[in-house]
């Protein structure tokens, strides 16, 4: 009984280490293949349109409401200590260095990451990835590398959009609904946000782009190993891709905050 338990634990540990090694190699291969000729400009633009442009609406919507909620909650907290004038600073700093990159990454993962995992997963189970190999086309370079670049460009831009819309959302709550002076709100935003805060937000956005794209593409690419073949395999891969990406976003958020802030 104990032997079996140890055996099972050992097997699970080995499988986990194997997966970890595989994902690192997958990421490394995807990144290095970005620099192999010919550059895949058309594909990068196509994926930027999908990851970036098509996410704009959802980012504006979530950014606006996040900012509005922050404005409301921030006001009710700050008013207790008589510091409601610092609302602009509280909203902007929270958004720029923390909520902006995290929420953007989660929203884009839910929208574009799940689609990446599903698309590549379907390609795996319908032998399209094997077909690429038989045509001497590197599937990692063809499917993954352009997506990394597209995400690395799109995530910081979407984060910036989220931040700006979120600050405006806080302004709506603070000025239009709670009667805070608009000049005070904007002045505290400008005074409190330093270039370092913006940089940290962008580092996070860039790191989340790399991590979530890797996890989503990896899950799709190895659908057959983790989830099996068929429609259920693809659906499991997609679910796992989103869940694992979200967990990774929070872990990396902590690590980056720990080292850079």
């Amino acid at each position, binding site marked *: 009984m104990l032997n079996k338990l140890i055996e099972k634990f050992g097997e699970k540990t080995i499988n986990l280490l194997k997966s970890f090694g595989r994902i690192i190699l997958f990421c490394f291969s995807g990144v290095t293949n970005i620099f192999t000729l010919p550059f895949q400009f058309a594909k990068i633009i196509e994926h930027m349109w999908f990851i970036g442009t098509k996410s704009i609406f959802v980012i504006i919507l979530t950014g606006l409401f996040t900012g509005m909620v922050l404005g409301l909650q921030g006001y009710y907290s700050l008013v207790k200590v008589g510091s409601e004038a610092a609302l602009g600073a509280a909203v902007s700093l929270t958004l720029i260095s923390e909520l902006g990159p995290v929420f953007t990454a989660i929203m884009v993962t839910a929208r574009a990451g799940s689609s990446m995992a599903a698309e590549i997963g379907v390609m795996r189970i319908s*032998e399209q990835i*094997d*077909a690429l190999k*038989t*045509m*001497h*086309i590197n599937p990692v370079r063809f499917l993954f590398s352009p997506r990394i670049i597209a995400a690395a460009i799109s995530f910081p831009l979407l984060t910036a959009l989220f931040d700006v819309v979120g600050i405006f959302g806080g302004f709506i709550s603070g000025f239009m609904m709670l009667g805070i002076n608009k000049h005070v709100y904007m002045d505290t935003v400008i005074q409190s946000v330093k270039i370092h805060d913006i940089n940290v937000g962008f580092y996070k956005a860039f790191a989340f782009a790399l991590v979530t794209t890797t996890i989503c593409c990896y899950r799709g690419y190895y659908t057959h190993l983790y989830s099996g073949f068929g429609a259920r395999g693809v659906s499991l891969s997609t679910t796992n891709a989103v869940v694992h990406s979200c967990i990774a976003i929070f872990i990396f958020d902590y690590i980056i905050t720990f080292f850079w802030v």
Partner: protein
Amino acid sequence: MAIPLIQFINVSKNFGESHVLKGLNLSIYKGEITAVIGKSGTGKSVLLKHIIGLVQQDSGQILIEGQPLSQLSPKKIKLFYQKLSYMFQDNALFDFMNIYDNIALPLVENSRFPKDQVNKKVLKRMDQLGLIDIEKKFPSQLSGGMRKRVALARALVMDPEIVLFDEPTTGLDPIRKKKVHSMIQEYQKKFEFTAVIVSHDIPEIFNVVQRIALLDDGIIKFEGTKKDILDSQSKILNDFIAGKDI
């Protein structure tokens, strides 16, 4: 007899507990069409995937013109694989690309052909295979027969020397089947490629191929020419052809 272009020697392959190939021996000769027949699930597709490198054998050797594949230099292996083309059972067309892009993909990604030459080659293949005015359509908008022809066009667009067909007529009606068979035969004569076809179309396939191999229980139980089949006293072969359980 000539040295086989591809030769399997005692090739075994397991997937977990499942022993798919159990010391298989097979010879494929240059310029000929070889059919691999056998019951479903006996490892015929796995055999093809060994040739194109999608699956690696656990033991045994695959010889290319008498030389073990494992002992060839990476450059020579790459050169060999570049001569190959594979037509998948379910076509494996890219559903996010239109028909033109599907056929052009190997040329665009692998060769340094200028755009107009790629265009010329693709349109020529499409014309030869009767794929007129469907360049902008997507695979999901085509019939099963059309998709097969698109897959065949993609397999032939790089002018391969060896083409592997994995059940090219699955899911087609008898008329389409006949058309695909005559198409393979016709193009094999025209382009003189070597072909290996995994097929269940018995006896029709015998009119298309020069050699036949019967795969059963992980090994080749019969291998020979059409004449050998007619002369054969092999019970297992005759039973399989007659549709009896072997």
